[in-house]
């Protein structure tokens, strides 16, 4: 009996997760598409064209289109600026790579600077010589000799 219940629950979970992965979610798409007149995502806008686009997305989901297909249709109509995130291909790929490149270059520069400073300090320590007054040095030697006795 327990096995039967576990199997039923597992089946429900699997069916549910498969459905969530395959069928686009209206709210997700509204957060990924930008209203062409107000430049905010659809979920943040009640502009007339944003409302119309929400209806369009709802209708396309009902018709069985995938998220990619719906986005492609909107890009065809309104241009790539309608996507909240630039596509990860072609020239738009730069929008993703440049920040990563900037972080890597920044890390290399900071590392190089840290290494340079570290070497300079070591070099300075190696060549450091006490600059004692000869009289003080003589007294220090005398004190050390007395201490050793």
């Amino acid at each position: 009996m327990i096995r039967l219940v576990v199997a039923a629950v597992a089946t429900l979970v699997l069916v549910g997760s498969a459905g969530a992965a395959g069928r686009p979610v209206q709210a997700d798409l509204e957060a990924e598409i930008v209203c062409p007149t107000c430049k905010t995502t659809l979920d943040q806008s009640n502009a007339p064209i944003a409302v119309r686009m929400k209806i369009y997305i709802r209708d396309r989901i009902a018709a069985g289109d995938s998220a990619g297909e719906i986005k492609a249709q909107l890009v065809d109509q309104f241009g790539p600026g309608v996507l909240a995130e630039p596509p990860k291909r072609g020239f738009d790929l730069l929008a993703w790579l440049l920040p990563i490149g900037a972080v890597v270059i920044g890390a290399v520069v900071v590392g190089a600077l840290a290494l340079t400073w570290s070497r300079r300090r070591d070099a300075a320590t190696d060549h450091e010589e006490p600059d004692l007054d000869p009289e003080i040095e003589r007294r220090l030697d005398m004190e050390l000799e007395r201490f050793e006795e």
Partner: protein
Amino acid sequence: MTGRAKTVGQVIAVAAVVGLLALLGWKLAFGDGSGAAGALAGGDNPVAPDFTLPRIDAEGGELRFSSLKGKAVVVNFWASWCIPCKDEAPELQKTYERYRNQGLVVLGVDAKDFRQDGKRFLERFGLTYPVVDDGRGSTLGKWGVRGFPETFFVNREGRLVGEVIEGGIDLERNRERYAEGIRLALGDSK
């Protein structure tokens, strides 16, 4: 840091600052976004910006704006979701029917809109003048369109004349300027 590295760093920093200042200057000088409408408001008669866009009227195909040179053109920017655009549509159709024999064309530019919605709009209001689809809004910046509807007048030489009409042409405050724009576009000196 060595002296050389420090100098290179300073040069890069100064170059970056100069570059940003140059961008700012360019933006202030040329990038005010007012387009042809701004030049017209400043007293010039700029050449109307050219474009080639697909037609959504019954004719189909593409329309290149510069191919209309020699005709007077009333260019109306609109969208099907814009309420004042619905109110003024019958007036634009009347203008087209009244003046087409004198060589005037009304040209609709359906911008930031679904082309299917635009086509339904034409059918609903019985519009027979040429209308192009500019869903991406590629013409708006060059023409200096700030909202919908907006109407421009282009004379037979392809230059903007009159005033840009913001809001419906059917509104009382716009009627006189609309008539004046048509008169100037047709080249009527009376």
